[in-house]
């Protein structure tokens, strides 16, 4: 059982580190701000979440785990909010998202005004 | 960390400077955690990244966010800095080694604090005990300094700026002449 928990926590840590690295590579490689946000999103969600989850599994059920859970919850609330604020600021600052002209689906399929309303 | 600091030197855009200063403070806090100073890291976390950045931004908002020109007189300061640094590094030759438990600093009052905190105050956090109890006078002074600084800021820019704003164009004209 202990072995199982160890393996799980290691797997989480490795996967989390990997995702964080990939996200950072994304932050460096992607072409514009709006695209880089997705890279940062990977770091913020799965990278951070998996590493902290690995730590939680390692720790078992104690005060430390409670605090780790609080950190994760807080970041899950805060991260999209800051990303959203940043995106709005960037739009406001005159940056236009880079869109491939020929295959941008924004025109026809994106213009979904109805949606499945449930009334 | 040094890279951040060096980048700080180069950047002209003050806004980026402030952002990098925030990052610098983050790195400093990580360093404090590594060096076992959790209380200090806590303070740096709360102060350095948050409040200082916000205050700097407030100042930038009130003034300007672009440095006018890169410094022209580079050589003399650089020489001075390198000389001072060399002297200081020479000075460290006599310092105790990193992490040496027999360094003078660890032999004076620290063992007393570490031993007596438990029985005297019943608190596990020695830093708090020393801060508030053994060195209470110091902390009183620090609190007074913070109070004074807040009052000073109040006096300096606390009042409404409106009457002074009118004079500003005249000042600028004078500067242009």
């Amino acid at each position, binding site marked *: 059982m202990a072995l199982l928990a160890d393996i799980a926590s290691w797997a989480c840590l490795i996967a989390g580190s990997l995702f964080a690295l*990939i996200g950072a590579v994304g932050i460096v490689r992607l072409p514009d701000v709006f695209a880089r946000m*997705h890279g940062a999103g990977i770091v913020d969600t799965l990278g951070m979440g998996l590493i902290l989850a690995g730590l939680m599994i390692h720790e078992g059920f104690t005060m430390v785990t409670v605090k780790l859970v609080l950190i994760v919850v807080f970041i899950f*609330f805060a*991260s*999209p909010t800051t990303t959203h604020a940043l995106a709005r600021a960037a739009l406001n600052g005159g940056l236009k998202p880079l869109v*491939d002209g020929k295959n*941008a*689906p924004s025109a026809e399929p994106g213009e979904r005004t109805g*949606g499945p309303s449930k009334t | 960390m040094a890279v951040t600091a060096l980048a700080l030197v180069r950047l002209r855009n003050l806004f980026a400077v402030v952002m990098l200063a925030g990052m610098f403070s983050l790195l400093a806090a990580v360093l404090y955690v590594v060096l076992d100073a959790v209380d200090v890291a806590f303070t740096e976390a709360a102060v350095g990244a948050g409040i200082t950045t916000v205050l700097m931004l407030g100042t930038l908002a009130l003034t300007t966010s672009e440095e006018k020109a890169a410094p022209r007189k580079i050589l003399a300061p650089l020489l001075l800095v390198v000389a001072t640094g060399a002297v200081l590094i020479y000075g460290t030759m006599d310092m105790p080694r990193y992490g040496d438990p027999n360094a003078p600093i660890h032999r004076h009052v620290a063992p007393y604090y570490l031993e007596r905190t438990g029985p005297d105050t019943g608190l596990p956090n020695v830093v708090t005990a020393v801060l508030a109890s053994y060195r209470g006078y110091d902390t009183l002074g620090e609190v007074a300094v913070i109070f004074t600084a807040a009052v000073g800021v109040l006096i300096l820019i606390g009042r409404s700026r409106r009457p002074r704003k009118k004079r500003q164009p005249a000042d600028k004209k004078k500067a242009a002449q």
Partner: protein
Amino acid sequence: MLQALSLGAVLYGLWLLLSGHFEPLLLGLGLASTIVVVLIARRMDLIDREGHPIHLSWRFLLYIPWLLWEIVKANIDIARVIVRPRMAIDPSVLRLKGTQKSELGHVIYANSITLTPGTVTIGLEEGVLSVHALTREAAEGLIRGDMDRRVTAVEGAADGRGEHGA
């Protein structure tokens, strides 16, 4: 009033979770702190159906696992895209209409979209969301409207009584 009480209860629970010391002094201080915070929050006008949405807590708890699974799937997709030497990205901006009734529902929807890598909400105006999608798959996943339906379902029971957010 009910919400203030429940906020107080939640905060006191948070205090107990954080504290881990159960001495009378600290429990009393915790109670005092909770009361102070609730009073300040009332002064700040934070306690309403948006600031403390107790009415959708249970459904929200059911929503979280689904969202987490979506996040994991999307993460793997995007990570694969980034790692590939020739990044097969296809950024696009689409406009979606959220079918939620209150602004709170819209916010949950927008944040869920942002939290899923590959899609970022870059604007939210009166229920119309502008979403920046990194890849075509991510965009199509959103257009299918799965998440939209689920968030609406989370909000489901919220209407009926006095609506603050709308």
